[in-house]
C-alpha cells in the first residue's frame, strides 16, 4: 500500500530533483515557450515539501493539501494542471489511509479527465496528458509499478518527440517542434523518477 508516509518521503525527493533540474526544465521550455517550467516545478515542489510534515493521515486529504500548496505558489499552465489532477485523484482517495498500486490507473484516469476539462486539450496532443495516460495504460499490467511508471513516461516522451506541439506558444512552431521533447512530458518523466526514487 502507498501511504501518507510514502508521500512525505516522495515529496522531499521531488523537491531535491526539481532543485537540480530547474535550469534544464527552464531551458527545455525556453526553446519554444517562455522558459518558466523549471521555476514552476522548483517553487511548487518546495512548497509541497514544506508541508510534508503536516500532511493529514487521510490519503485523499493529503493529496489535496499537496495540490493546494502547489497552486498557492505556482499558477502557470503546468502547475495549475498538476494541481487539478491531484485534486481529482484526491477525491477518489478521500477517507482512506492509502491506496493500492493497482488503483493507480483509476486515479490517473480521474486526473486526466479533469485536466482535459480544465485545459481544454485532447489526448495525443503531445502534452503531459499523454504521459499520464501512458502510465495509466501501462500500470494495468505490471508487477513492478514504479519501474513501469518510469518506463511508460519515458516511452511516451520519446514516442511523441516526432510529433508537432499542439498547445501553448510552442504550437505555432508546428514543424520546428518536431524532434523536440514536450517540456511538460520531459518534466513528468523527471517527476515520476523522483517520486519513485529512481
Amino acid at each position: 500500500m502507498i501511504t501518507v508516509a510514502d508521500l512525505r518521503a516522495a515529496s522531499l525527493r521531488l523537491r531535491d530533483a526539481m532543485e537540480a533540474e530547474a535550469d534544464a526544465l527552464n531551458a527545455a521550455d525556453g526553446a519554444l515557450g517562455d522558459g518558466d517550467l523549471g521555476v514552476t516545478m522548483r517553487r511548487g515542489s518546495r512548497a509541497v515539501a514544506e508541508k510534508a510534515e503536516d500532511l493529514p493521515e487521510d490519503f485523499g486529504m493529503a493529496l489535496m493539501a499537496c495540490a493546494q500548496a502547489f497552486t498557492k505558489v505556482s499558477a502557470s499552465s503546468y502547475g495549475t494542471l498538476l494541481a487539478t489532477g491531484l485534486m481529482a485523484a484526491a477525491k477518489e482517495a478521500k477517507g482512506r489511509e492509502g491506496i493500492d498500486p493497482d488503483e493507480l490507473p483509476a486515479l490517473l484516469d480521474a486526473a486526466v479527465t479533469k485536466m482535459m476539462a480544465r485545459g481544454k486539450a485532447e489526448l495525443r496532443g503531445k502534452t503531459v496528458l499523454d504521459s499520464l495516460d501512458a502510465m495509466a495504460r501501462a500500470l494495468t499490467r505490471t508487477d513492478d509499478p514504479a519501474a513501469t511508471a518510469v518506463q511508460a513516461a519515458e516511452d511516451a516522451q520519446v514516442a511523441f518527440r516526432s510529433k508537432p506541439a499542439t498547445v501553448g506558444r510552442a504550437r505555432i512552431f508546428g514543424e520546428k517542434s518536431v524532434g523536440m521533447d514536450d517540456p511538460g512530458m520531459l518534466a513528468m518523466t523527471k517527476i515520476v523518477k523522483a517520486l519513485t526514487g529512481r
Partner: protein
Amino acid sequence: MKKILNDPEAYVDETLAGLCAAHPETYRLVGEEGRAVARTTPGRDGKVGIVSGGGSGHLPVFTGYVGAGLLDACAIGDVFASPTSEQMADAIRVADRGAGVLRLYGNYGGDVMNFDMAGDLVEIEDIETTTVLLADDVASAPPEEAEKRRGVAGMVYAFKIAGAAAEAGLDLAGVTRVAQKTADACRSVGAALSSCTVPQAGKPTFEIGEDEMEMGMGIHGEPGVWRDTLRPADAIAEEMLDRLLADIEIGGGDRVSVLVNSLGATPHEELYILYRNVHARLKAAGAEVVMPLVGRYATSMEMTGVSFTLCKLDAELEGYLKAPCDCAFWIVK
C-alpha cells in the same frame, strides 16, 4: 542584469507597494496576499465590475489600468506568471457591486485555467461572472485558429471601452457584449530588438545579436516569425501594418484607432517615427485615425521593441473610447 531592484523575490510586492504609496487616491491593495489591487473609490452600487489579471512586468498592464472608467480590480502574478485562482477570486469579490463581474484578460493557458477556477470559487458566493478573452496577437496563430491567439496590447482598448460601457450603466450582458466586440475589433503584432530580464531568472530571456530584430515575438520573449538584421523604421512599420491589414479589412471611410506601443526601452522619439509612417498609410487608404495612442501602454519591462494595435471602431466603440477615464497612467477628460 541591468535592473534596479532589491530581492528578486520581492520585485512584484515592492512594485505594488510603491504604486499604492505614490497614488493612494487611485490604487489600494486588497486580498489576503496583497496580490489584488482595487480602485480606492469603488464604482457605484449596481455598476458592473470589470477585473483583469495576469503576470507582472507589463506596466501599465494590468494593474495600472485600475481606475475610474477602466478596471475595478486586478490580480497580479509574479513576473510573466499567472496569479493564482485565489488572488483572482479576491479581485472578483472586491469588484462586485451587485451587478456581476466581467473577467477581461489575455488568452494565456495559466491565466485562463486560473480565471476559470476563480469563477468556480465565487459562483458559490452568488457572484455572477462572464469572460471575454483578448486574443489579438496575429503572429501567434493563423486566422483559422484565431481563438488560439494570445492577448497583447489590444487589451488596453478593451479595458478602456468596456470600462466606459460599465460606467455608462450597461448591464453585465451589455458590458460583456461591448468588450467582446472590442476584442474582435483589435489586431496586434510586435517586433523585439532586445530581451528583458525576469528578476528571478537573473539573465536575459533570449539572446539576440547586436544588429538583429525579431518580428512577431511574444511579450514574454517567445520566439517570433522571423529573425533578421535590423531594418529601417519605415520597413518595420510597413511590414507590421501589412500583417495587421492582412487580418482585418480597413479601407475608405473606416474609423480606426491605432496604438504604437513601446515594449519598454524604445523611446518616444522612435515611436513617433513609426507613427508618422502608419498615419500616412492609413490616411492614404482613406481611413480616419481616431485618438491614436503613442507611448508605453503594454510593456515587457526593459525590452526594446514595439507593437502596433489596430482597433476598428463603430459609433458605439468610438463613443466609449473617447469617454473619460482616470488612472495614474492614462487620463481622458
